[in-house]
């Protein structure tokens, strides 16, 4: 104890001096940064640390004690078919998001950049779904998909395609895709706006030169617009990936992961495991696994895109 204190004193005073020096030299930026850092630390960094700690325990959320079980939770979920399947659903969800939301957003942006008048109207309408809460979107699509009164089944019946009517959210074969469509519907106006901003920053002289060379509309789009959107595309695809890996809101508002596990994404798995099964350690391990995937992929994808480089 005594020796310990003796050993520590010089180190401590050395540290105090260093802190003091940092304080006098950087008082203004430190004060400016402090509030944001406190918020960030309390609501993200500390919980993140605690998530890691919990992921190594068998805590059930209520018991006064918990015991450390090492990496058991991680090996548990990464060999559990329910977790792996929920991760696979996120991959499907991502593919749907890229094709439906990013694809339609890009198409709309290109079409809008081709028209002079009326752009404002179309942009306003197409963006509106994005202004709504995922919960509201989920409720609206819950009605559209309604087996009895929903617009989608009613339209199929009306045009004589009764064979195509489905119990869109109640059929385990298609529930995931039904929710995915609703989620893409909410997102495509957002991607359209980002693509439009990207298209507007393309040098008009490129188009002028292409026109002089006699390029047609398709060539202009294919040879100038798309390559010039390299950086915009990187941003959009990264955002689409992050958003597809989450996907809690739409699912929770529409199916709560059901029927059974049919539309359970990882975020829903985490929620159910934590708050319904009370397997806190396992839920924390699943959540951190998701975070690792998202961060690692975003980082590597952006590095790769930077390396491939922009054409402009």
């Amino acid at each position, binding site marked *: 104890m005594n020796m310990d204190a003796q050993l520590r004193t010089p180190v401590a005073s050395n540290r105090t001096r260093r802190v003091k020096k940092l304080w006098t030299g950087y008082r203004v930026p430190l004060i400016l940064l402090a509030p*944001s850092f406190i918020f960030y630390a309390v609501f993200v960094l500390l*919980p993140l640390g605690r998530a890691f700690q919990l992921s190594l325990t068998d805590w059930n959320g209520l018991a006064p004690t918990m015991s450390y079980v090492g990496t058991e939770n991680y090996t548990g979920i990464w060999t559990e078919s329910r977790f792996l399947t929920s991760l696979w659903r996120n991959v499907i969800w991502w593919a749907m998001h890229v094709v439906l939301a990013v694809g339609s957003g890009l198409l709309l942006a290109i079409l809008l950049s081709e028209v002079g008048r009326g752009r404002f109207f179309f942009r306003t309408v197409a963006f509106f779904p994005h202004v709504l809460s995922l919960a509201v979107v989920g409720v609206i699509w819950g009605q559209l998909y309604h087996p009895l009164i929903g617009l989608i089944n009613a339209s199929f019946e009306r045009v004589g395609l009764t064979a195509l009517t489905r119990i869109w959210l109640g059929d385990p074969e298609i529930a995931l895709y039904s929710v995915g469509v609703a989620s893409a519907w909410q997102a495509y106006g957002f991607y359209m706006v980002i693509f439009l901003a990207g298209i507007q920053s393309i040098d008009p002289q490129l188009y002028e030169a292409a026109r002089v060379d006699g390029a047609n509309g398709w060539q202009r789009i294919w040879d100038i617009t798309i390559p010039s959107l390299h950086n915009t595309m990187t941003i959009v695809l990264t955002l689409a990936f992050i958003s597809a890996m989450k996907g809690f809101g739409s699912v929770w508002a529409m199916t709560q992961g059901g029927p059974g596990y049919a539309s359970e994404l990882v*975020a829903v798995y985490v929620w159910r495991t934590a708050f319904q099964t009370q397997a806190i350690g396992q839920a924390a391990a699943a959540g951190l696994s998701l975070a690792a995937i998202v961060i690692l992929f975003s980082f590597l994808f952006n590095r790769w895109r930077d390396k491939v480089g922009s054409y402009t």
Partner: protein
Amino acid sequence: MKSLLRFVREANPFVFFALTVLTAVSLVPFLWVITSAFKDNTEIFGSMSLLPETWQWANFEAAWLGGQFGRYFINTIIVAVGTTAISVAVAAPAGYAFAKTQLKYASWLFYLYLFGITLPIESIIVPLFFQVKDLGLVNSHLGLILALVGTGVPFGVYLMRSFFRDLPDALGEAARLDGASEWEIFFRIMMPLAKPGLLALGVFSFLGAWNEYFLSILLLITEDTRTIPLGLVRFQQTNMTDYGAMFAAITLAIIPSLLIYVVLQRQFISGLAAGATKG
């Protein structure tokens, strides 16, 4: 409207057709929900006609009484205004610090914030819940507001940094030569110039908090604290058979968003685009 008609006359038919289809995809669900809100149950079941035969206001009465939409609305305003005010107040100084001041290890600290942007909040819900619980703020709007500020701060700082970085350094230097203190430079010169950035972040935070669903489910538990998204989902789960009232409830939930959007749509769109592409 006039320019729209001219557009219809002038546009290339393929472009016109594709645009109409894509726009209809976003518009039709709203038209269907809003017109159905004025139909009674027999008409909702029986007919496909777009407009109701007789316009029923009873559905809105049922929705208003069945849910507590007045309450939800006030709760949502509290959460959105509180989150926006604190977010901007906290993120603007930090963004300025990263953009315009010299701080040792600033780039490492900035990487830490960037990390927070990519980190999905879904992955830390469990400890986040216990964190708010330990602060005694579960089931309170304050708890939700603080958690939304905390989880939104990395992005807010990132966005504000890019706006402040675009301001010329010469302004600060000139003021410094005139004897202005660092605080005067920040509050009197830089903050007013960063108004577009503050507005962009404000719109972003407001919209995010207005629509927030994920942390709200976690942290708002009783009926009297619910916001519009929570209230509407709840209403759908508890009113399985009164379809007219359901459509009316959706319409009630959409109206405030629609109004805000129509008034502020330029700010919305440029704010969101700046949020995604700045940096």
